[in-house]
């Protein structure tokens, strides 16, 4: 199947058997593709005895630790083909991941993100509030994970406003005017979890202002690391936001710059869901075997999108727990899981953590 055909499949519509068949064949081919087009990848595969002639179940495919993208320039297209280089947001002095995108991969990422997100907020473009500062996206040469996230989600906005100024202060008046202007309409809000909490929620509380965003949908991501210390869980986060602005639809997502596009959205039951285009496998640290449902392990992520760089099968530095497959109460098919957090002592990376270290 061609990728364009796969992208037409509704994101949460295949059951385990169907999805396994689809992913196994597509991801085996992707492994072959990178084996033939990326010399360092070939060397890595040769070291583990990868047989490029064989057909694999996708769970048998080798996976690369994400750290390798900080150590090597890994791409499967000529330099001239690269239209965008995405970088992870690392703290200064720390090596950053570099992800090389050609036109095709970049465009399938956008398409995929649209498919996934619109299945939650609808296909119609709506007024959008970005809970961040515009300065983050102004330098288009530097596609940081944070900037890329904002730009990626911006296509759902008909009218866009950035709620924070360059000093990360809330533009209260503008925000109030915007909410007033689109009263009764659906508003889409996007931001990084920590930023939303620190600069939106806390600021509204400090100012004693309540907004009416009962019609709004908030999508946020970037991790909970900085909020754990403030004892803010997903439930508390939702409740607190509801208290200041009446918002009822709040969705977290899990994603990473190494696999932009195939994000894992949180459903109404609070579970992260793997779409048709990608999957997670929870692996045991002991021997990398596959963990049982309910058992904590290292998260491997697989995605059909990475064609210009060998990032289709990656071992993250996050721990997670598989909660089930095809049977979430929300009705979506596919695996659903939760994130436990970063591996202890791992290098610090992630979308909003660089910024958060200042606090």
């Amino acid at each position: 199947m061609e990728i364009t055909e796969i992208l037409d499949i509704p994101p949460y519509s295949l059951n385990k058997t169907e999805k396994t068949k689809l992913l196994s064949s597509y991801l085996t081919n992707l492994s072959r593709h990178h084996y033939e087009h990326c010399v360092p990848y070939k060397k890595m595969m040769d070291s583990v005895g990868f047989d490029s002639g064989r057909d694999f179940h996708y769970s048998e495919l080798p996976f690369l630790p994400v750290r390798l993208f900080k150590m090597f320039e890994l791409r499967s297209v000529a330099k001239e083909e690269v239209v965008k280089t995405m970088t992870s947001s690392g703290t200064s002095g720390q090596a950053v991941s570099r992800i090389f995108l050609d036109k095709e991969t970049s465009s399938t990422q956008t398409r995929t993100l649209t498919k996934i997100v619109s299945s939650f907020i609808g296909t119609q473009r709506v007024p959008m509030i970005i809970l961040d500062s515009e300065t983050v996206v102004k330098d288009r040469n530097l596609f940081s994970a944070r900037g890329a996230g904002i730009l990626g989600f911006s296509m759902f906005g008909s009218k866009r406003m950035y709620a924070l100024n360059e000093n990360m202060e809330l533009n209260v008046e503008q925000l109030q005017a915007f909410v007033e202007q689109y009263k009764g309409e659906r508003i889409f809000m996007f931001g990084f979890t920590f930023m939303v909490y620190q600069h939106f929620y806390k600021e509204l509380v400090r100012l004693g202002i309540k907004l009416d965003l009962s019609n709004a949908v908030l999508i946020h991501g970037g991790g909970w690391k900085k909020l754990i210390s403030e004892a803010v869980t997903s439930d508390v986060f939702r409740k607190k936001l509801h208290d200041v602005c009446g918002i009822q639809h709040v969705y977290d997502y899990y994603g990473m710059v190494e696999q932009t596009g195939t994000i894992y959205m949180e459903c109404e039951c609070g579970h992260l869901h793997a779409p048709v285009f990608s999957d997670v496998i929870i692996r045991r640290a002991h021997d990398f075997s596959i963990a049982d449902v309910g058992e904590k392990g290292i998260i491997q992520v697989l995605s059909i999108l990475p064609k210009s760089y060998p990032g289709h099968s990656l071992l993250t530095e996050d721990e997670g727990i598989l909660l089930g497959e095809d049977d979430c109460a929300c009705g979506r098919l596919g695996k659903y899981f939760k994130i436990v957090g970063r591996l202890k002592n791992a290098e610090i990376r992630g979308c909003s953590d660089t910024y958060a270290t200042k606090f």
Partner: protein
Amino acid sequence: MPKYEAVVILMQQSFNDVTMLFPQSISEEQLQNIPATKPFADDTVAFLHALSQELNKDPLVRSFPDVATFAFFCRRANILQIKERYSNDDLIRLGRGIAFHIAPSNVPVNFAYSLLCGLLSGNVNVVRVPSKDFEQVSIISKAIARIAPAHQECASRIVLIRYERTSQATSAFSALCDVRIIWGGDETIAQIRKSAIPARSFDVCFADRYSVCAINAANYISDNKYEALAQGFYNDTYLFDQNACTAPHLVLWIGSESDVAKAKTLFWSALHAIVKQKYGAVQPVIAVDKLTALYNQAVQNEGVHQVSTEDNLLWRVAIDELQPRIEDFRCSSGYFTEYNATALDDLKKVINRKYQTLAYYGFDKSELTEFVLSSGLKGIDRIVPIGRTTDFSVVWDGYDLLYSLTRVCSIL
């Protein structure tokens, strides 16, 4: 002197983030007024012997072989034996004064050996113990505190402190020390050297080192000491998460193809059995580290093959060719690169001044002597049987620690 006043203030401030393990408090003035002694002073030898006995009384020591080994080292008989080796030295020596020791963070008992060298050479010792809360550190420092009342003079020459890297204490103690002993590798050395020491003082530094192992396959098979050797090798490596400078990362197999193949199977399966039984669970981040290390090695060198093992406790990586800078591809906690060699001489291709210990099995001393003398190696300071790489000696890493920490007074 204004300089010293500044230090006092600095020290007083820094005591907020410094934990005193022994004694309960100390001022700079006290430190400066304690005299240095001659090497192997009687009260020092008596103190060490008492420490040895005190440690042996502690039931906790049984679960810490590294503490037991230290206790054994401190025995009067052993100390006197070391003293005997210096008996031909007729120079007049004294401790240099205040020795400031920065112990490595990854080896729990190293601070105690560093202290021992400082005491035996006659110094007043300020020892920064690992910031990680090792039980071994607590066992030894408590034992010191218990025997201190009966050995006041020697105990007054001991200060054990713990603090985080962010503390100003390093600068404070550096400014008043006569000699500074820096363990912990290149990065720590660079970091600590940002703190100035007085003009006449100097550093004794233990830089990053790399260690290897060579096994004669035929002798290994015929000697049939598989389990004991596996235990010895386990102590050499896993006991310190393969993170001590003495821990081999590269294993060189010497012998015919069939012998080597057979020896490898025996060796690694015996080791794995012990690791499984003693080492505990694989930390998730270490599993990721090992996979990253393999791929890094595979990208940068040719002919790198993972040898499949049962689990992530033990990783083996076979290489077709010994290439220089193999020491760059190491990982901790059980990641071994192995190579089938025809002779010890093959090691010449890789050994540089970073190489410290060669652990061996199945070679006799004359072979090893011949190898060292004929090869003109830039590195390798110790050649020891498998199982003894972590044995401490006052001559370490090419330094004679006892001589280094003394000053000589000439009288004509």
